[in-house]
């Protein structure tokens, strides 16, 4: 019997897992959009077929995105950077701080614009690090 309180059975998480399985999507790749949402060493190895290249790309992505020296057995949430950039941009545009819900003054809006730009730079740097996969 399915446990309705079990998030691995009855949640968006479970449904997304099931969809990825149904479509045969690789881990970290969005089954609906094909976007790379996470980077794992295992998946990089599957794509490159080479341990040292996979490790190099993983570490380069970790450096580029400000993840820190994360171990190869952990994953890097690439989507988090983009979401953070969008949140800052939305705050700057709407004039409401997404952290506090308070109205922003000119200084606050500028802060969020700069933060969005900074996050965009990280997104681009991660994208460039992943370009190596296409080059082989």
């Amino acid at each position: 019997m399915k446990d309705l309180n079990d998030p691995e059975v009855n949640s968006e998480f479970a449904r997304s897992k099931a969809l990825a399985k149904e479509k045969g999507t690789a881990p970290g790749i969005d089954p609906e959009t094909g976007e790379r949402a996470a980077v794992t060493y295992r998946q990089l190895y599957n794509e490159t077929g080479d341990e040292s290249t996979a490790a190099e790309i993983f570490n380069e992505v970790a450096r580029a995105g400000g993840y820190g020296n994360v171990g190869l057995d952990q994953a890097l949430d690439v989507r988090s950077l983009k979401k953070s950039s969008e949140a800052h941009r939305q705050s700057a545009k709407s004039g409401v701080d997404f952290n506090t819900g308070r109205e922003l003054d000119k200084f606050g809006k500028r802060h969020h614009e700069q933060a969005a730009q900074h996050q965009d730079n990280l997104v681009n740097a991660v994208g460039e690090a992943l370009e190596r996969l296409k080059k082989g």
Partner: protein
Amino acid sequence: MAGTALNFDATKITNNYGWFWVGLATPGAGSRITLFTDGTPDATANPSAKHLGHTTDGWEMTAKKTTEDQNLDEVVVPIDTVITALDVGLAANLAQTQDVTGVLQHLISGFGTYSTAAGYEQITLGITTITYLGVALIFPTKADATKFMIYNLYKAVNDSGLANQIKRKGLGNNPVAFKGYGITSRAAVDQCGNFWKQI
């Protein structure tokens, strides 16, 4: 003249349980882990996430600093203090202690190795490499059940080993304490984890 508002707010009192996840991806600089609207981790951004199931008494989050006071001979009280350590952890008594694949294998980093084949799943005991996990405790806010609070440790390991009680009276359980470690090359203010609330 006006007085100052009091801060009594019953909608900010926790009265619900949380979901504890291991195997989460690390968020990038200035970011937070990606969640779905129902509070579960985004399965694509967190491809290895696993939920650790029921507990007997819920979860407890702790973050405790240790300080060392600085004194001068001429002054009887400390004149300053410095932080010498920060201990961050998430602890509970796990109830699903017969789930080797889904629960126990995530508690044995450094001293146990999980394997499975036709007809069995096992943990062999002996020294092995310590592997760290991204973990998070996620629970709904009282004021709005579609918004969540999140305690996320980027690099954690269960520090209390296995202490699995097998008994007929009361619930068998296994106490766990996930201890947070620092990722040295992240920004200094964000090396261990974060605690955030959706608004």
